[in-house]
């Protein structure tokens, strides 16, 4: 029986035919190709890279970017539904797609030259090339404005020095979008550079020992006087605003993605509650478990409505970053809570990799932290409300 999704408020009826088809095609892909391999990949701490070309053929990467660059040109609700389905598989897979599409293809599209767009976007869309996004540094996470990475003028080009940490896809990337301050300026001097694998002085090393996002590569990047040609800068990037614009794109997808992880956990818990017999009846016949299920369904449904309206605002071109903060913050926190409640409902079985909740629960701790922590989004909302920064 194919997966039918959690849709208590019949949101399906509000979707266009393309939106539904986009979701269904990725849904089928996740059922057929991701779910059978993800448990082992996660336990082995291995990113299932064999899925990348297939996802490229499907057109998942940068699906909301224009057709002229080899992308599908879908609307943002469809894009969100795609992220939801990927994360129903695993947050690591969705992270890969978010980085590739929202953090690498988007800045090349938004800040790149026509030449950079033509060179990179079609190859990234097909998954022939892989990208990463380097903003965070060992000592500058929530506060990227303080970054130490520098690009100093050097002939026509630049000399890049510094390091980045916690970079998804870092060791696998053919191209890194690296954010650096130019010539020791302030945060306004931050610019984006396309740094290619193999350039002398650029190295990447995987971070080991993760309890979360185990089916995803997270790496450290080091730059020791890497010579960057003049055309490696993203010409229209300028100031901290540029990477923040990328983060808005990625956070939008995360707000949807988290729902997918929550749906996977909720449905497994629901199924389990109907079949696990304790004290002679299924545990789902007990009021306490029913309340847990009601709570999970309620929170998932609220998150779906939030994401859907956010998508409509994005499609209308009126979405504000603070609205994305609210959705990322709420939906990821919701998914963390649903995953944990589902894990508990499964009793001892809930700690096994054979069941999905604990994998999602562990993954979602990264999602809670990256792309602006839960706290940081509260500060963004607080500032939007009061006009006073509490950072």
């Amino acid at each position, binding site marked *: 029986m194919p997966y039918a999704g959690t849709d208590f408020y019949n949101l399906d009826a509000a979707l266009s035919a393309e939106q539904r088809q986009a979701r269904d095609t990725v849904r089928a892909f996740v059922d057929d190709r991701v779910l059978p391999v993800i448990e082992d990949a996660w336990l082995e701490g291995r990113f299932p890279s064999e899925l990348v070309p297939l996802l490229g053929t499907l057109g*998942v990467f940068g699906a909301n970017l224009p057709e002229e660059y080899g992308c599908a040109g*879908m609307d943002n609700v469809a894009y969100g539904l795609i992220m939801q389905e990927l994360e129903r598989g695993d947050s690591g897979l969705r992270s890969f797609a978010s980085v590739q599409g929202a953090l690498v293809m988007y800045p090349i599209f938004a800040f790149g030259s026509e030449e950079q767009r033509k060179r990179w976007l079609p190859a990234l869309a097909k998954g022939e090339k892989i990208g990463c996004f380097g903003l965070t540094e060992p000592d500058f996470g929530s506060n990227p404005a303080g970054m130490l990475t520098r690009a100093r003028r050097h002939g026509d080009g630049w000399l890049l020095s510094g390091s980045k940490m916690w970079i998804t896809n870092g060791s696998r990337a053919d191209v890194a979008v690296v954010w650096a301050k130019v010539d020791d300026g302030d945060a306004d001097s931050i610019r984006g550079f396309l740094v290619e694998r193999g350039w002398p002085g650029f190295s990447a090393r995987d971070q080991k020992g993760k309890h979360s996002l185990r089916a995803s590569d997270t790496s450290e990047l080091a730059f020791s006087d890497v010579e960057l040609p003049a055309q490696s800068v993203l010409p229209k990037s300028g100031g901290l605003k540029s990477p923040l614009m990328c983060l808005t794109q990625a956070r939008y997808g995360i707000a949807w993605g988290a729902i997918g992880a929550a749906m996977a956990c909720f449905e497994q818990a629901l199924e389990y509650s109907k079949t696990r017999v304790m004290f002679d009846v299924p545990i789902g016949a007990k009021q306490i478990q029913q309340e847990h299920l009601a709570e999970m369904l309620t929170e998932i449904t609220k998150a779906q409505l939030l994401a859907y309206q956010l998508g409509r605002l994005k499609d209308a071109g009126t979405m504000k970053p603070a609205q994305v903060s609210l959705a990322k913050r709420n939906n990821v926190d919701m998914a963390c809570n649903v995953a944990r409640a589902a894990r508990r409902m499964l009793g001892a079985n809930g700690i096994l990799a054979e069941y999905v909740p604990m994998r999602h629960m562990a993954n979602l701790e990264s999602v809670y932290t990256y792309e602006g922590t839960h706290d940081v989004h509260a500060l963004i909302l607080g500032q939007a409300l009061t006009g006073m920064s509490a950072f």
Partner: protein
Amino acid sequence: MKIVVTVKLVPDPNAEKKIDAGSKRLVRTGIETVLNPYDEYAIEGALKIKESLGGDTTVTIFSMAPAASKEVLRKALAMGADDAVLLTDPALEGSDVRGTAYAMAQGIKQTGFDLVICGGLADDGSTGGVPGALAEYLGVPGFTNCRQVEVAGGTLKVQRETDSGYQVVSGPLPALVSVTMAIGEPRYASLKGIMGAKKKSIATLALAALSVDGAVGGDGAKTEVRAVAAPPVREKARVVEAPDGAAGARAIFDLLKEKKLV
């Protein structure tokens, strides 16, 4: 070359179904209509031929179905077919295999074809009778149960699945083939394909536009459903328990022998 793929629109195979006692027909209300799953293999087969031949080869989807299900055909276009034709007319309701094949043949002749590719079986009617009858009404050779289809230099070469292996058969075009699932897993509709399908044409064809002799639909049916019954409830599976693999194999073998299956 012009390839026509016949695609039946059927009620969701995963939905629970009921037969209306009065009309002895399937109750379709409230059940989603989807592409007949076997026909997705026919589409895959056609797209493979199109890819291998390149040039001006086109794939047209042909379906006989109620007008309301027209948009369901978009999925076939999203998979990569070029356009679609929907033969639809209230008078076609109640057609049996003969009537279905006859009306479809008139429509496909009008559409034009070098090769017609059918699925092996409709998920709802499940007679498997349409492809053979359709070849007859089109007046072209029919190759059923094909697991591989090749077109080269205006001739067709197929591998037909049989109970014990396969036959290699060739013949001239135009022709009709029906395919098995061994033709290859149907591809996913890509996101670009979904967007592109919005711009592709789904033409509708009514009976009045065709040269049709005699009665069609329920009035023209040569068969009649006399009674409908649920299949017998299956016996509970028997679990063979044994101390080791060899003993287990022995026990299963004895069981099969007892049932005269080996």
